[in-house]
């Protein structure tokens, strides 16, 4: 009930925020169009080899784009104060908020990116690997980013600081993600990369709610 309550509220708010909800998709399409234009003179095989890697980098940058908004609006309008005082399951609520953010900002990209990759000629196996790695990688990035967003919430302009904090932490996910799709492209084994990505996901799934709850309380102090 509580999970549904928070998710419906976040979806309702997103639906009333205007065009912002479509921005991640728009940015993604722009990057892919530019990539296609800039690689139009190289051989198609090379372009296809680079495409999943380019998609991964685009997704990573788009993930950073609106990270600071996860808790910012709640902080600015005072709902965060009420929620931190009254809620007896703060960690669960934080997790649901991160899930809502991922569903709204990242899931559309996770769905659209492999479809575009297929349209551009990527083989089915690599496309499927790309989809799976994004499905594991993007929520991990949202979890990591939430900690940075919570730590910097009281700062007026925290966007740059959030990016500086999260970028080094995103590097392992980027390495494992791109390595998995690359191995898949060359018909090599990529189970190690997927296992490591899953390991990172579960680690941050455990750490993030606790870290965010502490960081938000410190910020409100």
């Amino acid at each position: 009930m509580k999970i549904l309550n928070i998710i419906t509220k976040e979806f309702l708010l997103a639906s009333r925020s205007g065009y912002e909800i479509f921005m991640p998709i728009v940015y993604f399409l722009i990057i892919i169009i530019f990539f296609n234009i800039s690689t139009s003179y190289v051989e198609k095989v090379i372009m296809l080899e680079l495409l999943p890697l380019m998609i991964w980098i685009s997704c990573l940058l788009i993930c950073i784009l609106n990270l600071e908004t996860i808790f910012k609006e709640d902080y600015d309008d005072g709902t965060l104060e009420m929620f931190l005082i009254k809620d007896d399951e703060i960690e669960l609520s934080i997790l649901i908020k991160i899930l809502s953010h991922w569903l709204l900002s990242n899931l559309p990209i996770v769905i659209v990116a492999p479809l575009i990759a297929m349209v551009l000629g990527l083989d089915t196996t690599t496309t499927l690997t790309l989809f799976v790695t994004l499905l594991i990688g993007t929520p991990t990035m949202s979890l990591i980013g939430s900690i940075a967003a919570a730590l910097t919430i009281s700062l007026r302009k925290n966007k740059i600081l959030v990016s500086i904090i999260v970028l080094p932490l995103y590097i392992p996910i980027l390495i494992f993600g791109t390595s998995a799709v690359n191995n898949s492209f060359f018909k090599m084994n990529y189970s190690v990369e997927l296992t490591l990505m899953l390991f990172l996901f579960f680690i941050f799934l455990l750490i993030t709610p606790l870290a965010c709850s502490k960081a938000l309380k410190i910020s409100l102090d």
Partner: protein
Amino acid sequence: MDNHLIEIDNISLLRNEKSILENISFQIKKSKALNLYGLNGSGKTSLLKIIVGMTEPTSGFIKNVSGDEDLFKKTIYIGHKYGTKGNLTVEENLSYALTVNSKNSQQKIKKALETYKMTRQKSMLTKNLSHGQKKKVSLMKTLITNSLLWVIDEPYSALDEESINIFNDTTKEYLKKGGALIMTSHKKIKEPFFTTENYKVYS
């Protein structure tokens, strides 16, 4: 002691080596309103934040002597910010403030809207309301939640005369039922709106 909810015992707060609060002690009692008054920057809001557990005091204790372990979970805090979502309507804001939705809660929302004379604005987005109306929406939350303690930072700010009277009447009713209120203001409350104790906060 039977009617005591919370005991504030020798609370002190230091910020950047500056003393904000020093050795503050008082009790919050059932059916009583406590007004913390003082000058700007005297530490009233910091004291409220300590009471609701948002800020850790440098020394001293907050003791829950009510016998109800969940007292702090049954406390509603309304701070300087209104705690309302601009892109939600008045009715939606109230509905999401409730942790459990039932037929009864819809009745409560309807009654709260009527009490604060906001029925006409129930479908308006909160961002389109005036400051006073936003304040009323946040105060309405006290009427729809079953809280044992209301902690309100400057409840009268931004309110017109009529809304102040509504707040006073609803508070009176709430205190009669055994609730307690702790609030801040810049001055002592002299009028007998409800049983009020005044505690001056010095910085």
